[in-house]
């Protein structure tokens, strides 16, 4: 049994310690907002926070997450109130297919925590998630809007 703390709640799961955190979250815990895109930490669709740090969970063994605070897209909103990043996403109508957006939002949420007023260059450096629909123009606008909210 492996004990994880996800979105503030403790959960025990029976998995091999080497299982990628992504699959433990999706299949053993049952939270499917975190997406599988590449499995090799290239695309960022699986981004979650581990002790606040944006982490690509597809390439992160579940054993390394023990004793840490894991936050997934489902854990951002508090009591049904969306975060300013999520609100900016809605205001700017960012998602197209939406599949990459959980990871995108998790990456942006961490960026705004470390750099509350990011420049375009900061965004370019920090946000490396792939979006095949090509929502980047709206992503950038929404990041600035969230920073100024």
């Amino acid at each position, binding site marked *: 049994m492996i004990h994880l703390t996800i979105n503030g709640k403790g959960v025990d799961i029976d998995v091999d310690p080497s299982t990628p955190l992504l699959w433990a979250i999706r*299949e*053993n815990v049952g939270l499917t907002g975190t997406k599988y895109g590449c499995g090799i930490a290239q695309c960022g669709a699986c981004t979650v926070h581990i002790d606040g740090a944006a982490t690509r969970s597809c390439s992160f063994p579940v054993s390394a997450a023990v004793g840490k605070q894991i936050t997934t897209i489902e854990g951002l909103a508090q009591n049904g109130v969306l975060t300013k990043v*999520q609100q900016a996403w809605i205001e700017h109508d960012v998602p197209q297919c939406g599949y990459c957006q959980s990871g995108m939002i998790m990456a942006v949420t961490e960026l705004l925590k470390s750099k509350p007023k990011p420049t375009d260059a900061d965004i370019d450096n920090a946000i490396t998630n792939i979006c*095949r*629909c090509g929502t980047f123009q709206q*992503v950038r606008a929404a990041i600035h809007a969230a920073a100024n909210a």
Partner: protein
Amino acid sequence: MNFVPKMNRRSFVVGTAAVGGGLALGFDLPLGPKAAHAADAPEIGAWVVIKPDDTVVVRIVRSEMGQGTLTGLAQLVAEELECDWSKVTTEYPTPGQSVARKRIWGAFSTGGSRGIRESHEYVRKGGAAARMMLIRAAANEWKVEPGQCKAAASVITGPAGQRTTYGKVAEAAAKLEVPTDIKLKDPKDWKIAGKPLKRLDTKDKTTGTTVYGIDVKVAGMLNASIKQCPVFGGKVKSFDAAKVAGMPGVKKVVQVGDNAMAVVADTFWHAKTALDALPIVWDTVGNEKHNSASIAKFLETGLDPEQPAFIGNQNGDVKGAIKAAAKTVEAVYSYPYQNHAPMEPMNATALYTADKCEVWCGTQDGEAALAATISASGLPAAKCEVYKVMLGGGFGRRGRVDYVTQAVNIAKQMPGTPVKMLWTREEDMQHCFYHPITMAKMVGAFDKDNNLTGLHMRISGQSILATVFPARMDNGKDPVTFQGLNPSGETAFGYSVPNLLIDHAMRNPHVPAGFWRGVNVNHNAIYVECFMDELAHSIGVDALEFRRKLMTKHPKNLAVLEAVAKKIGWGEKKPAGHFLGLSHMMAFGSYVAGAAEISVVGDKIKVHKLIGATDPGQAVNPAQIERQVAGSFVYGLSALFYGECTVKDGYIEQTNFDTYPSLRIAEMPPVESICMPSGHAVWGGVGEPTILVAAPAVMNAYFQATGKRIRSFPLKNHKLQIA
């Protein structure tokens, strides 16, 4: 301990209910509290369901894959319905319901940018019919004539100040006959359609609650991982199931068709881990001898003008014009295989019993998915059903249903147990229906006064229809090859040349080809538009001026081209080191043009600005069109700079985003979109057309900047990067 998949309490509920005289299957998707559950509310005609609380459920049969069709089609229905937009939700009727109701909603196929352009009329009529029925129901109640009543924002008012809402009269309206004599609004009177409204599906996509195929949960479900023969056309020769039978979670090792193996396990991760360890011997049927170089050689044979070719567009005598020319200009271009690489890898969930086969999947064609289910299960149509869920991208890939067939095939070997089959990214990269590979030899002929007297465009390469719809070929010819090059129609060539020949020497390698966002205009536009610049340059004439002379009979093409030229400041003084490029074409019924402003430092191309103009005839949602234009440029620039699938020993070498990169935010140029609907009767699409202008506009600017003309792609092969 055996792992039992955690069930979502809002699980799928499939039931039947008689609604409005027709059969409606209630499909309860976990879409959150706002989800439409229309089965228990009155259906007003086929397209609209109205609940007592005035909620309007618009039926959508085209698939939402990011392009916004769900919102756009709902706007068109709501416009004619005269309902309160804030109360609009949507639902997908199932393909099985469509069969039961004799295709009352028309085609489900979502590709070729045809969602809105081919269904706008009948969906608007569906909204209008519902409005007329609701008004008549109110009029009947008030004992007045319908003509004395008015409807606006879901409220009906009568001649004596009577007032009711759609929700209150819906029950009565549902019992009325559906009118057929319907007059649609003039688009200039639109209040909901034509407006830059927000999408209807955004909130769930920001909270992780949207259900994609990969997220489907069915009670008692197992998971499967699949591996197909890496070499196209190859088959399973042998395998050793005993080697993995005892691995954690493994339930069964199954062969899928003649070319794939799958492991079914409690979780996907267990299935994939076991599959990786499964010894499989493949029979590569001789296709292992093919590689990129041999395919290129094969295509080169088709460039010989003496080789037989299918004619796509011809006028005058091009051979004579070339023979009589004072000067000719020649160039050979080529375009590689590319993968769609939607963010969500292929997947489908299937449940087979002797009595029923059900499939849950994201698909661009629900009807094709149902046909695949029927065929793979061996059950009659009435015993099969497909439930569509959100697509994590499609771009043409999910118009194919190979993955549905596989899921049903696996489920059939596990009767009574639902199985979700998910491809790895590696499987997805190596088993696509790829953007076709082509080359083109361009020959232009000038007379002594530098008039372009002849143009021969010889395309050599792959036919998409030969792979995916051979029955739609025309005596061996693939008409789709000539997108953007046809004499007339919705993909017409935008130039008049006195002697013209555009023909296709078909060369079909063993790699399967398919429809890829933009389809054949992606390379056709590069070939034509880059070569037009070459021709202009060869006689020292400005690229825009050169085109104008050939476009006098193509005013709509010219209008979009002039629009981008003006916006980018063509002919004006630019900052030092900045250079411009233009392009245009007609595709999917829309006229599109692009303009790029770039600078080049060493091997880095900086795109300072990319402008796209589109004339789709009518614009149903300008805000979403703007997003499609910007998104199409990301797709087009990813293809231009990075997109290439190479063949080695019969298989595709690229396996993931490390070897098949895609544009990231740092590489995204500022995009400006000009939406200029000119009202033509045939509405054009917007999901695809503008993708075609990105590459030639950038390449024409690159030539201005460097004097170098690049004729093969992607640019990474020329050591060029996007800055």
